[in-house]
């Protein structure tokens, strides 16, 4: 496990990304998988092909090269349509009430921000996006819901995400995205990757249904 810092900033995320790319090259076929996250990079190697001393040596090389300066890739920009409404976002009105804002202001704050994909995990296609405007940040529900519909757009603390499949979940729901976030049949499987920049575009109920959105 490589720890590159202790907080969650776009700059640190760029360093994690650049490091991941360099580690991929440095370890080659000895690498089994990588899990980049906010401030860390989990490096999984094949212990029957190499050993930890060799891996550590190569990782030090990567980190030294990174300190000498590496360009930070900006990622692609991805726009995801969202139908924000109480019928698709069960917590939207409560979030507005708690923050002393109108529903329209909550929607504006959520959709006016450019988010960055900090990590993908937890479930297939689940992308952690940051950072939500502090005015609409909200803690996870004390009791998670048994069923959160696929496509639900949700907030937990200063993170936001789209549920890629129906699943249990404890995040605050504000809307629904009709675009599939994880489709095993599609190529690519996911519209976003770690490091990409994501914007949400507020759409109408009609547009949501036309794009294949499903109401609960």
């Amino acid at each position: 496990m490589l720890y590159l810092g202790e907080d969650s900033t776009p700059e640190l995320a760029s360093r994690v990304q650049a490091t991941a790319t360099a580690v991929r090259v440095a370890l080659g076929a000895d690498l089994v998988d990588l899990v980049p996250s906010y401030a860390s990079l989990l490096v999984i190697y094949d212990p029957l092909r190499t050993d930890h001393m060799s891996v550590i040596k190569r990782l030090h090389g990567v980190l030294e090269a990174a300190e000498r300066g590496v360009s930070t890739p900006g990622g692609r920009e991805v726009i995801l349509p969202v139908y924000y409404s109480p019928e698709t976002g069960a917590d939207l009105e409560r979030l507005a009430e708690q923050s002393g804002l109108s529903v329209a202001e909550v929607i504006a704050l959520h959709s006016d921000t450019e988010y960055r994909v900090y990590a993908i995990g937890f479930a297939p296609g689940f992308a952690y996006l940051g950072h939500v405007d502090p005015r609409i940040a909200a803690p996870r529900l004390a009791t998670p819901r048994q069923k959160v519909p696929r496509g639900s757009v949700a907030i937990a603390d200063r993170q936001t995400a789209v549920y890629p499949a129906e699943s249990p979940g404890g995040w605050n729901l504000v809307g629904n995205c009709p675009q599939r976030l994880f489709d095993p049949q599609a190529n690519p499987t996911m519209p976003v990757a770690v490091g990409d920049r994501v914007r949400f575009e507020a759409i109408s109920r009609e547009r949501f249904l036309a794009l294949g959105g499903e109401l609960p």
Partner: protein
Amino acid sequence: MSLVVRQPGLLSLIQDRGRFGQHAIGLTNGGPLDPEAFDICQQLLGNRPDCTAIETSFGGLELEARVDTFICVTGASMPLAINGREKPLWTVHSVLAGDQISLGYAAEGCRSYLGVADGFVITPQFGSAATVVREKIGGINGNKLAPGDVLPCDATSLRRELHLHPDYQPRYHNRVTVGVIPGYQQSHFSRLQQRRFFSHAYSVSQRCDRMGYRLEGPAIECDINGILSEGICFGAIQIPADGQPIVLLNDRQTIGGYPKIGAALSLDAARLAQLQPGGVVNFTAITPHRAHNALHLAQARLQRLPLQPLARKSRQ
């Protein structure tokens, strides 16, 4: 040509060695909880190591052959019967179309592997046929096996009825010692808490599954509640707020925010996964060097197993 599922038992899943290199889209590994028993099953059958087999937990699997082929069962001591006649485990058996195959419930251990010559023909997803039910990926429509499922496999008469000598068969007890490489948020556990973790026995709770084994015992305190979410490797040991350790296994989530005290040696995590609820676990700290040696020794052993034709007695 197939084996047809009559009864799946408590939990039966199609597995191959697992799905690797897909963490970038959030997919976990899946694969056999006990890779040693799985690999020996494929070796006995003369299969490629990445063939598919059925992993049965606890027992109760019943199949009907609709093909002439060979099967082999390894792992937990679930009594195997073909047409009601008991057959040894760790042994290749010929089966003919119409034969009824059944696995009883395990007296020792928890996971068995039923392999077939050349494996079951299952379309891989993301490079693997391993079933991860939580992700609805792999196997047959991402599901556990159900009555009536048809598991396609090829007919063959070209297998030897090999057998692993009992001296070399793994034994599953209800107590294991798990080697742990301390790491991750180790510094957030005081010396007292670390000593408590390494010096007490824990028991396997009812909540033990392919995602992870939740243990019960002296609560371990951590001076932080959560961490910035980070990647979770196989065998990582999470300590959630209630202080009860969870050893994360094949179907774990790939990212999480609970503090971790270290990671279990994969070989020992596989032995842990052979424990049923109530089984006893002790942890012992090991170095990466020792882990490395253990992995190489296990690999060498696996490659040199004496697989012999079963001395043929007159058929009963």
